């Protein structure tokens, strides 16, 4: 099996701090980790490889420091690591990110399944997985909580729903985004860590993947983060009383000035 796992380096959620000057996330002194959902995706990929043979390629679009995360992925069982990095990728939103990953994956070659975490804890959009699959023209299934079967030409999986789960079969090539219920990520092994230390991390820049400069980074992003701010603590609250209709009238009166 050829498995590609998309991972992202994010600041540790415990340490979220805003830089008061730039109004962006303060990165200095904040520990970077692999996005938790991606850890589960990686573990599932490694388990599939261990059970059915094959190779796990882990890929990330990120700054040079993301290499550390890729080495961690290798220590947890990934066979190959690709760092897609270029100054021009900076400021990318999920649209531009999906474009960039699409081109990187086309360069990596053929694959049976792409695994992603459900969402990244920074943006929480959950858009890159589905966006990437759409660009690649492959089917995707989100919120996967279990891989039931692998039959050589596809997978049978459980997709988590609000009120239970669906059992869905999908043929290769396909993309899955996974939830934390799917497994428990392993601790790196000693041999894995030794391998990771010596591993060669492949690097792709914008030119390597044939990216159109207008489609990557800030220029390629239809959405722009204008401001990031912590919400003001608001102490005031009101309890509405009366019949339901009366309460609704009061509620509308209160909301109108904000619209």
């Amino acid at each position, binding site marked *: 099996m050829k498995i590609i796992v998309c991972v992202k380096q994010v600041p540790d959620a415990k340490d979220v701090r805003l830089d008061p000057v730039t109004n962006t996330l303060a990165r200095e002194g904040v520990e970077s980790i692999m996005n938790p959902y991606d850890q589960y995706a990686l573990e599932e990929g490694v388990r599939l490889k261990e059970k059915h043979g094959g190779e796990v390629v882990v890929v990330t679009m990120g700054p040079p420091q993301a290499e550390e995360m890729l080495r961690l992925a290798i220590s947890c069982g990934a066979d190959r690591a690709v760092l897609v990095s270029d100054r021009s990728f900076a400021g990318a939103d999920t649209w531009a990110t999906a474009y960039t990953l699409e081109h990187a994956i086309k360069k990596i070659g053929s694959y049976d399944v792409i695994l992603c975490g459900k969402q990244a804890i920074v943006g929480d959009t959950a858009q890159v997985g589905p966006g990437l699959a759409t660009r690649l023209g492959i089917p995707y299934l989100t919120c996967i909580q279990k891989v039931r079967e692998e039959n050589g030409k596809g997978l049978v999986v459980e997709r988590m729903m609000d009120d239970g789960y669906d059992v869905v079969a999908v043929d290769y090539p396909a993309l899955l985004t996974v939830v934390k219920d799917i497994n428990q990520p*392993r*601790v*790196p*092994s*000693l*041999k*894995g*860590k*030794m391998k990771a*230390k010596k591993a060669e991390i492949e690097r792709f820049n914008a030119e390597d993947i044939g990216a159109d400069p207008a489609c990557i980074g800030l220029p390629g992003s239809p959405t722009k983060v204008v401001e990031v701010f912590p919400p003001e603590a608001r102490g005031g609250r009101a309890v509405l009383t009366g019949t339901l209709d009366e309460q609704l009238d009061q509620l509308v009166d209160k909301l109108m000035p904000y619209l």
Partner: protein
Amino acid sequence: MDYFLSEEQQMIVDVVRQITDERIIPNRAELDEKHEFPRQILNEMAQADLFGVPIPEEYGGFGGGCLEIALTVEQLGRGCIGVGTAFAANFLGVYPIIISGSEEMKQKYLPDVAAGKKFGAFGLTEANAGSDASGIQTTAVLDGDHWVLNGTKQWITNGGEAQIYSVVAITDRSRGPRGASMFVVEEGDPGFSCGPKEKKMGIRASSTTELIFKDCRIPKDRLIGRAGTGFITVMKTLDLSRPGIAALGVGLAQGALDEAVKYAKQRQQFGKPIIAFQAVQHMLADMAIGIESARAFVYSAAKHIQAHPKDMSKASAMCKTYATDVAMKVATDAVQVMGGYGYMCEYPVEKMMRDAKILQIYEGTNQIQRNVIGQELNKEYS
């Protein structure tokens, strides 16, 4: 304090620390309450290659020495010395093979041990032979191509869970201390069975049982080393493994101090956190002094043992004695600092205190250790 560990040593510490934080600490209370063997946790440790740490590289191990094993076991101890004992006793059962076994024997057993596929256990103690190990009654008689073992071992760690048992038996009583030999008994050998799990004060996750040999027949090639060298192998094994017990003590004490300080900072009495009171501060300070000196001693002793494998008895006995006495005191003081809460099962320190006691008893009581040290001093100065 910085002990300037090598990159590989730090790697080991990081991996074990993660396992301790993520797998041992959240589960230790339940394992203790249910007297449950931590098989799941040991499997994860196997998958992380930790069972290979002291196994030579040519048998699939990491090739680490005394210090690497001490570092591993110290981290485990911070979580639960029940789990730590299960892990350490595995090597107690395997060191005899490494020290005295033939090449064929090493090839047969060590790769599976390094991979965590088979666990070991060490069978020496009997009902009437604890500190006086020479009083063992288990016999092994050569009958054609087999040895036949008869007797009962008591309080064997990993009993019932291990697959490989290094067992000491008398092969020639007339030769006194040179009349014992060591054998590998495997799970499933005819005439070999394990008793029920003992109920203990502490280290309840560790499985402790009798080993029962009733005309137990094992092939001739299961003899470890030459006949009559049993007690020599035992002494060398214990010399090598005692720093591991010392390290367990350091780990347990560290875990206890961590809990006590955390508690003292947030528990308010008389209008302030109790860590503001000198009485409490002094207790915590003495605990910290004990731990750091024990740690420094264990690491130094481990390095000495790695460099001077023929001269390890005294260093080994000293660090075991000191670190385990520190562990008992620190665990007790941690309960005291935490007062009524420390006594409750909801908090982890009462278990640490119950667990710590065994450290002063097994692998040679601290009284026996002092005998060893005294005898070594006597030899040194003659």
